[in-house]
């Protein structure tokens, strides 16, 4: 099949970029989207042009490296699927496919489709953990965790930190990301001692990074390749308000 790629090209963080068209004449429908970009890049290299820079690593939808906005949809048209798991059979012959990087003030563009997502790391550093010194842990069965709580924690812990929620949100908000981690840790009994400080510090860090606010549009959940539920955002709000009013710091 044939497709036209319209890719955002930007040679550096401070350069201005533009969309550039590339004609792909021999696309195998069984290729993944990234494999198609590989083919394009091989061609560009041999033509002496700069290949398209994009983040990718595991290519099985779990590391969270890849991510591009494809025709206005983060990770493309298939739900619950990362870009690396998106296959060309999802598209039709003759399609024009617009490929852009995540757009967010908190995720500055490094090159082409590569953005800097260290803001997420700084949010986790601010409190997205349970403090337990190595070797000091009590016997694992000394504290039971009700299965529904464990399942809820797991559902939220599935977040791969790709940033699609931010890319999809009309406000560029990272609430879904933060809410997933707060939900994961705050519903577990192990997470209780730091329950208030965690959410207060993480929200403070989130705001400092320059993400927008949540207006409950739900775009984040719809774009999330792991289906982190919007209910997590309600939980984050509740945890934050509760912690703020508790006076604990």
């Amino acid at each position, binding site marked *: 099949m044939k497709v036209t790629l319209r890719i955002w090209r930007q*040679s550096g963080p401070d350069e201005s970029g533009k969309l550039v068209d590339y004609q792909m004449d021999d696309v*195998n*429908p*069984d*290729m993944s989207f*990234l*494999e198609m970009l*590989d083919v394009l*890049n*091989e061609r560009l*290299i*041999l033509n*002496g042009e*700069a*290949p398209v*820079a994009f*983040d*990718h*690593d*595991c*290519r*099985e939808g*779990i*590391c*969270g*490296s890849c991510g591009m906005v494809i025709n206005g949809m983060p990770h493309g048209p298939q739900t619950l699927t990362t870009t690396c*798991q998106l*296959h060309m059979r999802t598209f039709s012959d003759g399609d024009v496919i617009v490929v852009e990087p995540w757009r967010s003030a908190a995720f500055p563009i*490094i090159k082409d489709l*590569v953005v*800097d*997502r*260290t803001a997420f*790391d700084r949010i*986790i*550093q601010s409190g*997205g*953990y*349970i403090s*337990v010194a*190595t*070797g*000091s*842990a*009590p016997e*694992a*069965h000394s*504290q*039971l965790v009700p*299965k529904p709580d*464990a*399942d809820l924690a*797991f559902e939220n*812990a*599935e977040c*791969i*930190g790709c940033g699609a929620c931010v890319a999809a949100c009309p406000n560029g908000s990272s609430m879904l990301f933060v809410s997933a981690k707060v939900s994961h*840790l705050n519903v*577990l009994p*192990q997470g209780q001692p730091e329950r208030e400080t965690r959410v207060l510090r993480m929200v403070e860090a989130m705001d400092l990074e320059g993400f927008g606010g949540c207006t409950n549009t739900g775009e984040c959940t719809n774009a999330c390749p792991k289906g982190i539920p919007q209910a997590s955002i309600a939980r984050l709000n509740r945890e934050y308000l509760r912690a703020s009013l508790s006076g604990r710091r």
Partner: protein
Amino acid sequence: MSEIITNGAGTAPIGYTVGEDLVDRAAPDGPIETRWTRRKFAAKLVNPANRRKHRIIVVGTGLAGASAGATLGEQGYKVIQFCYQDSPRRAHSIAAQGGINAAKNYRNDGDSVRRLFYDTIKGGDFRARESNVHRLAEVSVQIIDQCVAQGVPFAREYSGLLDTRSFGGVQVQRTFYARGQTGQQLLLGAYQALSRQIDAGNVEMHPRTEMLDLIVIDGRARGIIARDLVTGKVSTYMADAVVLATGGYGNVFYLSTNAKNSNASAIWRACKRGAYMANPCYTQIHPTCIPRSGDHQSKLTLMSESLRNDGRIWVPKKAGDTRPPDQIPEHERDYYLERIYPSFGNLVPRDIASRAAKNVCDEGRGVGPGGLGVYLDFADAIRRMGEDKVREKYGNLFEMYERITGENPYKVPMRIYPAIHYTMGGLWVDYDLQSTVPGLFVIGEANFSDHGANRLGASALMQGLADGYFVLPPVIGNYLAQAKLVPADVDSPEAREAYDRSTERLERLLAVNGDRTPDSFHRELGQLLWDYCGMARNEAGLRKALARIPELREEFWQRVKVPGTGAELNQSLEKANRISDFLEFAELLCLDALHRAESCGGHFREESQTPDGEALRDDENFAYAAAWEFTGVGSPPVLHREQLKFEEVHLAQRSYA
């Protein structure tokens, strides 16, 4: 003593010389159960007030690296940590699916530290060091406690207790899991612990930064050269000790289940600086991966082995049969595993299932594109259990398969093919996880230590975390307390030499400006290795590979084309640099495979098999770990043997017929 093997073609000698045997002096003697306790007690301690003065470099942030960085930072050392990914959370440990073993015996099914130790030694086909493996089994218990306290959401029963399952052909249920994402959850736990130390200022994190060389001063590892992948700036980092946690080298095969950017550069360049490389020929192949769909294939995806519990594996009886599977009648199908191994059937171990698939494909009976695949059929299971039951048990795997192949496995049998999955070999380390370069510690998949010739399912996660959380911290303290190091200078001749060598290599890569892409070389190398040093190896094939690799390397340096400059984000340059290392390392891999004229674990030599076609070990001649000393690219390395003593477990042959 010296022996030279020359290649059959009679060109330049490809061979090796034999040096002195290597002895692990770090492990205490005496009862195996108390060795680790005694080692820890004997270890010298660093005064907590002095720890801040010690800088430790950790390269890699997978399970081993992140847990080590977090623990060392917490203990007060100044840790400088690196990863090539944009965030430490993305290291490839994240992709591990199955689970993590621990001798908790929560099921009261007869499990114990001793049994885990025994299973691991036997599973490793008697090519691992007993002391190390016993320690791993001991520490496994603590790992679960640690991870649970960190909030890792392991699967639980309705009682609130942790759930476990049996895995990888062992008879006890000792595998803890978090659905099919155990690696992700454990890594996030370690990443969060590491993040806490970064926030506390104990760990200085350098993401998107790749190690290029090891700096050795006065025989000790004192720093690394690393490149900032965003700006291209090459910098020198000095420290009192260097820890490599950079994972395995499976990507030398191009197509593997490893992440695209996983590479062997750190361990290979350390090897070139004097660290011995041990048992590189021990590579593990996983039988249930999704086959390639064409030449564009960039990596392979693994599906849980549990599929073999209910799926039946078959190929057409007739070679070259291109009919769709539903038009091949029952009597024209060959359920070859059930036929050859009637008692184990579709559940034979990984290596046996993999080789059998290769054999039928070699006979021209493979299915799918290129004839490289076999059917994994759930039709019987669906008839027996009903589609709902199958969906409940395997639904997420079926979805994954459909997402990748576009085929509905409820209607059409899945196609599977083996793929490189894990590498047991790695840098040689002693009981203290220290390489032959003092001050250079190697942990996780990057070292060779615990799995022998074959790794058991759910043991990789266990080893990574054992090394990082519990084993490395006391032994590295012992080194630092005794080493009496003088301050190392970024302007020392050794550091400058390493810096120059690294930058020159990058400049050379950019200067070739040939007519082939880096990936084209990687694909060719991978195909060569897969053909001659893959699931089954023989002398003639290995010699062919050994003759071809230097030519390919030569061609690479003549014809590779790397666009752009070194002073920017240049993914082609990163790739070419890694491939240049693979092209050197591959030669040692094949040489090791050639020299080990026995079959064991993941290394199958066609010359060494039982009449039934099973792997035949040669304990008389090969009960040793082969540690290779680098002497120059293309020049014969020196083999140092570490003789393995089996005092606790008696040598026995595996049998699955």
